[in-house]
């Protein structure tokens, strides 16, 4: 019985993240527009965009290879699996033991690997520029993320995300300098990985400033829809990840009653709302950086995360 319950929670989780991801993106867009005193697109616009894209025929460049057509599905699958492993409203996911935080980071790395390759497949200059800059950004963001994972793993005594979340609620963790540094580093990484201002601009089509958009320039129709959905999932994943690791309060334990699950869903929605609002607020109050300022930004994230890990090594041994 418990197994079926866990399995249900796991599948519910997979569907919840998929269903909520466009809403979060729409919410961030809406808040941004309102903060700029614009009306902004409706909250449900991302769903409509995806459906519209799915209805259109796909136009593929003449010299595109099989990789170009397969990549969107691989990117989506890797991102979806990663997102399914991050606890949203309940911990103790059925399959959380099969993959820990390091695997989640690596799955996102796989998605990025194929995205960058897809950008280079047609052999256009924009695809190349996007891929080249993406790997530059990732080469600093990924180690920073791993270092944040190290910090949390050292505090919780485990790299399992569910265990980390449970530990953060129940144990006397208290305020730690490492946690603060790790949180700041993780937010910086999340901004870079999701192609948000100041690293990249999700709304732009000005060629010289774009990274993510440049890689997907050749995509259309259903392929583009799948890639966009993966990008939305990734945003949701990062917000959930930050929530699960640093603000796990309200999250339902495995096998808890319906009341706990309801509370978990409500707090999760609130966390997403707050996260989206803060992201929008941050984005409108800062200007985009030049591409070659980004390494400085991410280098700072890496150093903060390394410092956090070093502090953990210095102050406490691993139970």
């Amino acid at each position: 019985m418990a197994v079926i319950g866990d399995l249900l929670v796991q599948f519910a989780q997979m569907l919840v993240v998929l269903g909520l991801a466009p809403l979060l993106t729409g919410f961030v867009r809406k808040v941004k527009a309102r903060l700029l005193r614009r009306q902004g697109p409706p909250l449900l616009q991302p769903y409509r965009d995806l459906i519209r894209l799915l209805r259109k025929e796909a136009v593929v460049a003449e010299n595109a290879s099989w990789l170009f057509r397969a990549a969107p599905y691989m990117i989506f699958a890797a991102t979806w699996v990663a997102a399914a492993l991050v606890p949203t409203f309940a911990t103790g996911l059925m399959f959380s033991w099969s993959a820990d935080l390091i695997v989640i980071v690596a799955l996102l790395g796989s998605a990025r690997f194929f995205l960058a390759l897809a950008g280079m497949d047609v052999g256009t200059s924009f695809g190349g520029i996007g891929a080249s800059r993406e790997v530059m950004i990732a080469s600093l963001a990924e180690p920073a993320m791993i270092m944040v994972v190290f910090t949390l793993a050292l505090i919780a005594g485990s790299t399992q995300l569910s265990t980390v979340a449970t530990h953060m609620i129940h144990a006397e963790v208290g305020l730690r300098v490492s946690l603060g540094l790790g949180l700041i580093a993780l937010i910086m990484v999340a901004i870079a990985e999701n192609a948000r201002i100041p690293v990249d601009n999700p709304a732009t089509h000005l060629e010289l400033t774009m990274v993510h958009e440049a890689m997907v320039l050749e995509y259309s129709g259903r392929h583009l829809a799948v890639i966009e959905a993966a990008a939305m999932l990734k945003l949701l994943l990062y917000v959930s990840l930050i929530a699960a690791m640093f603000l796990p309060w309200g999250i339902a334990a495995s096998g808890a009653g319906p009341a706990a699950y309801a509370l978990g869903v409500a707090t999760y929605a609130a966390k997403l709302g707050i996260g989206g609002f803060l992201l929008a607020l941050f984005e409108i109050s800062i200007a985009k950086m030049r591409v070659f300022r980004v390494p400085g930004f991410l280098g700072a994230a890496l150093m903060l995360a390394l410092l956090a890990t070093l502090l953990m090594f210095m102050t406490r041994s691993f139970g």
Partner: protein
Amino acid sequence: MATLPLILICVAALLLIALAAVALSRSESATPLVYGAAFLACLTALATALQHLLAGAAAAEIVLPLGLPWLGAHVRIDALSALFLVVVNLGGALASLYGIGYGRHEEAPARVLPFFAAFLAGMNLVVLAADAFSFLLAWELMSLVSWALVLAHHRDPENTRAAYIYLVTASFGTMCLLLAFGLLAGPAGGYDFEAIRAAALSPELGALVLALALLGAGSKAGLVPFHVWLPLAHPAAPSHVSALMSGVMTKVAIYGFIRIVFDLLGPPDWWWAMILLAFGGISALLGILSALMQQDLKRLLAYSTIENIGIIFIGLGLALGFGANGMPAAAALALTAALFHVFNHALFKGLLFLGAGAVLSATGLRDLEQMGGLIHRMKVTAFAFLAGAVAISALPPLNGFASEWLMFQAVLISPDLPQWGLKVMVPTAGAMMALSAALVAACFVKVFGIAFLGRPRSAIVAEAKEVDRFSLAAMLALVLLCLLAGIFPGLVIDAIQPAAQMLLGGSLPNQSAQPWLSIVPVAESRSSYNGLLVFIFIVFSAGVTTLLIHRVAQRRLRRGPAWDCGFPNPDPVTQYTADSFAQPLRRVFGTLAFQAREQVEMPAPGDTGPARFRVEMRDLIWETCYAPIAGIVDVAATRLNRLQFLTIRRYLSLVFLALVGLLLVLVIWL
């Protein structure tokens, strides 16, 4: 039949094949015969070693009446050597299989065939040797025949230079190992490993042996800063030999290091770990940064080997650190991670070099800037190379990720280490490992994107043809092994445990007994990873998505010209090149690591001449470590050169003076 004699027969067969190849080499059928026979010999040895390993058989030793009369040649198979025999013969068998097809393009097979078989025999013998004399002899055999293979295409002046530098470094390395064994054997001079193990060494001498082992085995493995020969020599050899040198010979060097430091040397000091971690971290980072800057496909792969060796040395360093602090389980975890990476690197680096060889034989090119669009012309090779690139970039669910994951788990246990030096050094090495892992992914996006994707950048690439079936079979076998080792990592880990138990007295929990075939290095509450399940998850969600999208969405697909923001340029020159792809990373890391300087020369206003962009990079290690030595040797040689043009009277007086001097020394000494 017992294991050891069977393997020895295989080695003897390889040596006979080498001799036969000398006689046969004029004939047409020599190539398939030699490679076919080598394939069979390696396969037999592989099966035997695997059986020994999996059955957990006891160590066996034979003393052959060869070599020094009072010593004989000791050969021995134990858990560690069985493990490395598997690596050597797996790589050897697949390289031979590949050679059956690839060898047909060889212009002078007589320069490759005999040495190829002897090379395989040499590597097997290093792993089997159980006394210092036969170890060094086998090591020298391995070095010399690989030198001959580097020199196979000797008309290219670059290859001659590579071979020269290789010969000098290899001789120096062997000399260091000779001295190391001299110290290990002590004044009594017991040269078989059993006697060495029994002898105790003072801490100072132990440290000296460690330094010599680092110089000797580390230089063969390609540890920075002793790596200079590697990126020159590995690409110069024929590609299946490059695959062996990078995938297998560096592993034999690692074996030598492990045998000396973990087995023969006795209990370690904790600060030895610091040295290994520092060397490993620097090798990992500098190796992959150098690889990113390359445009020559095979040289790039050779630099990436240096990176992987760095990661393996980080694992060995952690194992020493834990071992010195009496934490055998943690030490076993770190050593397992290192040995697992040894196995994985042999698989995917072999695969990538074989892929590079396929491209080379189809197009005659090693320069990435001339390639492009090969995925359309060489479909299977492209797929195999992509799998290798994913594996080496440590992306789940392939094998590279599994060993990297174990390595991170080992780093995460290390706050328990009492020494402050290690507490600082281990997370730093962990950060360097994470950074280099991300850079590897960048590097292989570059390689695959430039060589196989995009549009062809030269006419010959546009006409490339897929390679023969033997080469494809060898590559696909490696792809399969990469996948299997990735989704069933527990099996490989279990096979490593007897070696860890033997060297460190500790081992990981039995992984095959874990539910669902997951791997659990310490305890399940702490961390576990299930490659199979992750693989099934990815395939499942990709399948569901594809099916659903194709059911629900518009299925029409139209081919049209590339969009490229409305300005598609038909000239393939407008694509990103390998150099321009790496430019952002060169700006971020290269200004420090290579003192990279970019210069733009703009023509004067009104001048219609082209603008020029120039990049200068310096090899700081060559300039600071090697150039001065080369300079001193050069100056000394010029000075001493005069001695060759003296008159007979002066020579006689020189001889007389030398005699008087020696006698004086003797008088004073005694």
